[in-house]
């Protein structure tokens, strides 16, 4: 009985097993079919996806172009940066490794904590920077001991370096890490996303960033899912950035900074024909290298809180009343307008009256009767009150604009200020008030609303010295590498003429000559005695604080007796040689007090140095007609 039952069971089981078996076989063929579909029919697509998976394009940062001075000295270069990095997964004990490292080089507590924090955050194979800017000695010491330092790697990267430290910080600027704002403002460049990539943050570095930056190279690498590079498949080098040659002369710049010492001052030296800026100084300054490597909070606060404002480039952003250095412009406006002749004379009794207001001359006793040149030489205020009133502010403003005052000079730097040359309509529009004759009086001696930058004053002087050509200042000498064509390299676009009458200009320049070379001139003490190198110039004092009537009555305090920040700014503009002008200079010493005692000698020394440094240029000038090969020789 059980046997038949069992047979029945067995038969049923066999039927069911057959069904199950066929079912399973069917399912297996589904899998096989799917396998065929994926591995044969869709193979190409997935092969492509697999390649995309493993291929990673990495950017190679190009070498940043160098910045050179006119003689080829490196002002900004790239320096090997010896770095120590740590790869966590290669060391058993990070702390121990760091201990061993600090036996060899000094590892600050801050760095140590930073590394330990990073090791916890990042994946094990990602190199974590431990130290940068190692000296060669430190680098080799670590190298020798590398077997005892598991996970420690030495890397050589490139780092921007400014060998002259603070000398060019305002002009050349510095580079820094890309900020969020940069990403929004700059043109998209994959390089910007590169960690550790630095772009120009100020000065020339910023203005010419695109040229200096170069283009990224690429490296195709095989990478795993975590982004760890396994090997390089191909490599395409990028274009290194272009070198940039500045008009600046390192030696003159160095001299100027040295000469200006501890003052808070600015100076600009120009080639009057080409507009080349041979030196642009703003002191005190800062070290751009510390910005590039990351400035400490303490250092930054020190720079920020310094009353002498080391962070600003006073040469282009400092706006000062030009004081008496403005008088040439007023004189030319009056002469060109025909309201006076060069022989026009005014009696100075120490002051002049305008209604009930008394306008003083700087010389309390008065100058007596003076002509134009004499009044420039002795800087008589009363004379200029008079002629300014005659010509009117709008004519003065027009002339000032011809000389580059009150307008941007399109220098290759950001942040250039335009200064201010007031007009009647300006006052109406901005102040909502009518222009007063008293305003013209003040403007006539470069006070009141008039504001200029040291760069503008240097340009003004250059345009006076070159006979009224509107040269524009320039900082970059050759934007392309100099070709053998020497002529072309020095050729300067012929500047537009202001269109001044020769005699008018001659009288003004004569006055400037007498400022330093006439015994009665305000800056006689600063004259250059060498033949053929005589300087012409003009002093100026920019009032920081009005002298009250009471102070005037009680006797004006001497500059030295007042607090530093209340003292007047001392200005001086000059050019040389007088007979064959080549260089123009403007100097402003903030709160420097006496223009003739402080600013004029500086201007003189800068011009002397400029002339001394450029003997070849003089040769060229002399030999220009004789032999053109000398030109080539200079620029090759």
């Amino acid at each position: 009985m059980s046997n038949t039952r069992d047979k029945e069971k067995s038969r049923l089981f066999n039927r069911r097993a057959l069904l199950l078996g066929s079912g399973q076989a069917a399912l297996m063929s589904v899998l096989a079919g799917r396998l065929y579909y994926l591995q044969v029919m869709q193979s190409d697509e997935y092969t492509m996806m697999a390649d995309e998976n493993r291929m990673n394009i990495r950017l190679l940062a190009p070498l940043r172009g160098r910045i050179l001075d006119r003689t080829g000295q490196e002002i900004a270069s790239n320096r090997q940066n010896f770095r120590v990095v740590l790869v966590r997964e290669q060391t058993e004990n990070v702390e121990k490794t760091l201990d061993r490292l600090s036996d060899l080089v000094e590892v600050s507590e801050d760095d140590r904590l930073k590394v330990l924090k990073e090791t916890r955050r990042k994946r094990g194979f990602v190199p974590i920077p431990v130290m940068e800017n190692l000296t060669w000695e430190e680098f080799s010491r670590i190298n020798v001991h590398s077997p005892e330092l598991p996970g420690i790697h030495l890397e050589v990267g490139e780092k921007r370096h400014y060998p002259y430290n603070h000398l060019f910080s305002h002009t050349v600027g510095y580079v820094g890490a890309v900020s969020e704002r940069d990403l929004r403002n700059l043109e998209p460049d994959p390089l910007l996303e590169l960690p550790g990539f630095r772009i120009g943050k100020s000065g020339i570095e910023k203005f010419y960033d695109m040229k200096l930056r170069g283009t990224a190279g690429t490296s195709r690498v095989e990478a795993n899912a975590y982004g760890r590079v396994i090997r390089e498949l191909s490599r395409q080098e990028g274009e290194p950035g272009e070198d940039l040659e500045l008009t600046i002369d390192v030696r003159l710049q160095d001299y100027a900074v040295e000469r200006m010492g501890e003052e808070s001052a600015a100076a600009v030296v120009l080639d009057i024909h080409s507009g080349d800026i041979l030196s642009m100084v703003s002191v005190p300054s800062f070290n751009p290298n510390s910005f590039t490597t990351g400035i400490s909070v303490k250092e930054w606060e020190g720079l920020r809180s310094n009353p002498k404002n080391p962070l600003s480039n006073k040469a282009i952003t400092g706006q000062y009343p030009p004081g008496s250095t403005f008088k040439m412009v007023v004189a030319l406006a009056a002469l060109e307008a025909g309201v006076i002749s060069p022989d026009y004379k005014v009696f100075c009794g120490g002051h002049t009256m305008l209604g009930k207001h008394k306008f003083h001359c700087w010389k309390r006793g008065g100058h007596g009767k003076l002509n134009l040149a004499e009044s420039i030489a002795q800087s008589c205020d009363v004379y200029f009150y008079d002629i300014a009133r005659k010509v009117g502010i709008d004519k003065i403003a027009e002339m000032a604009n011809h000389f580059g005052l009150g307008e941007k000079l399109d220098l290759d730097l950001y942040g250039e200020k335009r200064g201010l040359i007031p007009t009647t309509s300006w006052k109406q529009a901005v102040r909502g008030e009518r222009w007063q004759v008293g305003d013209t009086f003040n403007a006539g001696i470069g006070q009141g609303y008039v504001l200029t930058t040291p760069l503008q004053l240097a340009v003004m002087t250059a345009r006076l010295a070159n006979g009224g050509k509107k040269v524009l200042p320039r900082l970059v000498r050759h934007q392309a590498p100099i070709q053998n064509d020497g002529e072309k390299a020095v050729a300067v676009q012929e500047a537009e003429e202001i269109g001044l009458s020769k005699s008018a200009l001659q009288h003004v320049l004569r006055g400037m000559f007498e400022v330093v070379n006439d015994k009665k001139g305000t800056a006689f003490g600063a004259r250059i005695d060498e033949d053929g190198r005589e300087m012409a110039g003009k002093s100026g004092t920019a009032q920081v604080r009005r002298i009250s009537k009471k102070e005037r009555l009680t006797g004006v305090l001497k500059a030295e007796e007042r607090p530093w920040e209340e003292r007047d700014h001392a200005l001086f503009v000059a050019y040389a040689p007088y007979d064959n002008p080549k260089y123009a200079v403007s100097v402003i010493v903030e709160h420097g007090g006496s223009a003739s005692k402080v600013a004029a000698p500086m201007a003189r020394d800068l011009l002397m140095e400029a002339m001394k440094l450029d003997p070849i240029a003089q040769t060229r000038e002399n030999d220009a007609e004789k032999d053109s090969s000398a030109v080539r020789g200079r620029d090759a």
Partner: protein
Amino acid sequence: MLKELGSREVNLTLTKKILDLNWGLVLLICLTASVGFLMLYSAANGDINPWASRQMIRFAAGMFILFVVALTDIRIWLRLAYPFYAIALLMLGSVEVMGVIGMGARRWVELGPIQVQPSEVMKITLIMALARYFHGLDMNEVRRIPWLIPPLILIAMPAGLVLRQPDLGTTLLLVAGAGIVFFAAGVRLWKFALVIGAAIPAGFFAYQFLHDYQKKRILIFLNPESDPLGSGYHIMQSKIALGSGGIFGKGFVQGTQSHLNYLPEMRTDFIFSMLAEEFGMVGGLALFTLYFMLIAYGFAIAIRSRNQFGRLLAIGLTGVFFLYFFINIAMVMGLVPVVGVPLPLISYGGTSMLTLLISFGLIISVYIHRDVYISPRKY
């Protein structure tokens, strides 16, 4: 009649058993496991350490256990079926209390020095218990619903516990494996249709009780693009590995997907993707053939057994083995959701290797004792 029964109840000598051992099946098992060693060797970038060597040691130990299990009298296994089931159920329950958390789910218990995954043990013991139960029923009883209630309870208890761990893959394996035993035992087909019909609304209901990550897995399976970097990423990378392997593969230890770590879990659940990447469709189909033969052996043994316990045990265990294989491969090919089922005999892992070898031990024991008659009511 009694005599007739007695004559079938033979006691085999050990020598005879060893000679009768199904060596062909043993060889197939060794071959399949060797494919695993090869892949683990490749996974270590061409190094026997750390995975291949350990897997080989486990396999050797597992083979020893396989022989012990195979040579043990089938009647002893029949007798132990319920106690084993009870122990496994207790262990599963204890996971709730003192389980070790692994991969976001509690699945292991510490048993002295070793970690045991009770859900793995349960896969065997549930089949054993069901085989024993149906062994004791005659055909009329199988057809009557009241007799089906006890085995359904046998399934429901462990399935519920495993689902709580939560381990959806194992739950499905348990239920499906049990379903195979039900089917082979002769339960009417319409009853299956009824259960499946009831399971669909129940599934929707149960969906609400799933963990978020499980819900996510199901949703992502339905729409893999919705999570290209999460669970969908795994399936995508696995398909890329498979597809880029082409017909002949990229070569041994040459798989870029796997060696560049794009392939997730390549030593365990996704090991087939690595195989198919390196050996292509040819390698994949070769492995299918091995599995096919293993499963065919299981069926043959089941059909040849003259006792219902052996038949059901063999077909049930073979069915579970098939399910392992099918779900894993379908999963890495993106045909079913990622449920975390290893590729049998190949994926790296101790417990699953051991349970599979024990299963095969039982199947071989069924083979050795194929002619032993066991009275339905005797035990």
